[in-house]
């Protein structure tokens, strides 16, 4: 068997240096070639969510994304969807921190008149079998065609019109909270449209 390199200071430093250099170089290379794939899958996920919450559109909402402030130091991403140049809806990537196990991200699709077309959970960490039932149609379909002028967006326990998931009231409340956050942003945009139309600007 060949001799093992001695543990002299020079050998130790040299070998570690070589290893870290090779490692760093190969990682930078892999990072470069996967960066495109990572960006693509992120975009794919967003587009899929937007498609799921709005009627058919022909533009690329990702290209027209803008942000609107929510509170303090947070903002939500707004994705306008158009068909043949006219606005057919806004998808808002909303979120809430009041989930049972942390942040929940929900894509909320609004029609231009403020009615929620559909919603779709983008990300959550809720308990399997309990909070994660928010991904079942029995729960989320309650938000389809939701009109804020006709219904109250909170769980029945709080006097609202949404039936909470059994034994998962906190998760259900969080869902309502996320939809409400999206609505606040929509209202801001709506105000902007009203003042724009008064001054003659177009959407």
């Amino acid at each position, binding site marked *: 068997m060949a001799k093992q390199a001695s543990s002299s200071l020079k050998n130790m430093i040299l070998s570690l240096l070589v290893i870290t250099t090779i490692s*760093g170089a190969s*990682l930078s290379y892999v990072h470069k070639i996967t960066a495109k794939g990572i960006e693509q899958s992120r975009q794919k996920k967003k587009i899929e969510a937007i498609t799921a919450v709005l009627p058919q559109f022909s533009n690329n909402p990702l290209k027209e994304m803008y942000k609107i402030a929510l509170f*303090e*130091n947070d903002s939500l991403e707004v994705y306008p969807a158009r068909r043949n140049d006219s606005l057919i809806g806004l998808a808002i990537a909303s979120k809430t921190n009041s989930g*049972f*196990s*942390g*942040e929940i991200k929900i894509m909320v699709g609004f029609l231009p008149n403020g009615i929620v077309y559909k919603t779709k959970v983008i990300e959550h*960490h809720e308990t399997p079998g309990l909070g994660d039932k928010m991904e079942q149609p029995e729960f989320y379909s309650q938000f389809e065609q939701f009109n804020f002028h006709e219904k109250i967006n909170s769980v029945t326990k709080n006097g609202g019109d949404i039936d909470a998931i059994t034994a998962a009231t*906190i998760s259900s409340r969080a869902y309502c909270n996320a939809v409400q956050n999206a609505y606040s942003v929509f209202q801001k945009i709506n105000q902007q449209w009203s003042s724009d139309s008064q001054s003659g600007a177009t959407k």
Partner: protein
Amino acid sequence: MAYILLIISAVFVNNIVLSQFLGICPFLGVSNKVKTALGMSAAVLFVMVLSTMVTYILYFYVLQPLNLQFLNTITFIVIIASLVQMVEIIIKKVSYSLYEALGVFLPLITTNCAVLGVAMLALDLPVKYSFIHHNSLLFAVVFAIANSLAFGLALVLFAGIREQLQLVKVPQKLQGVPITLLTAGLLALAFMGFAGLV
């Protein structure tokens, strides 16, 4: 305040061992005697807090500005390995008996997923804890302290139970590892009772 909630949450509600599954190997291996468990927890506290501080600063002031976040795994683990070496040298000088008692488990703190795990979780606390609204070094450090206390709690509780287990008759097929795991499972079940506390 948010700091107290963070501590309660990390120690009871989201206990690092019993609910997040980090730090299992030393948990199952070391916790035979309460005294050793305490010594191990102290060593972990030292390494966890120091490494979280260093990795937090490294991530937000070096890696992120240079867009090198993907190097986090490799840089964090090298930092942790170095700190463990340091702690080993210090313990050897300060208390040789503790050094002997901990034996091979001391260098194994490097591979303690809890240490690396906490360092990584500390980078984005607002995602998991609704009462925290922005990242800060102080939150990260409190988080690290709380988690090492959580680890210590789980370890000491478990050691105490195992000391009692030795006096009881266990079915032959379940002796050794299985009964240890079952006990851990029951302890985890008990801790689930804290859910919703925060």
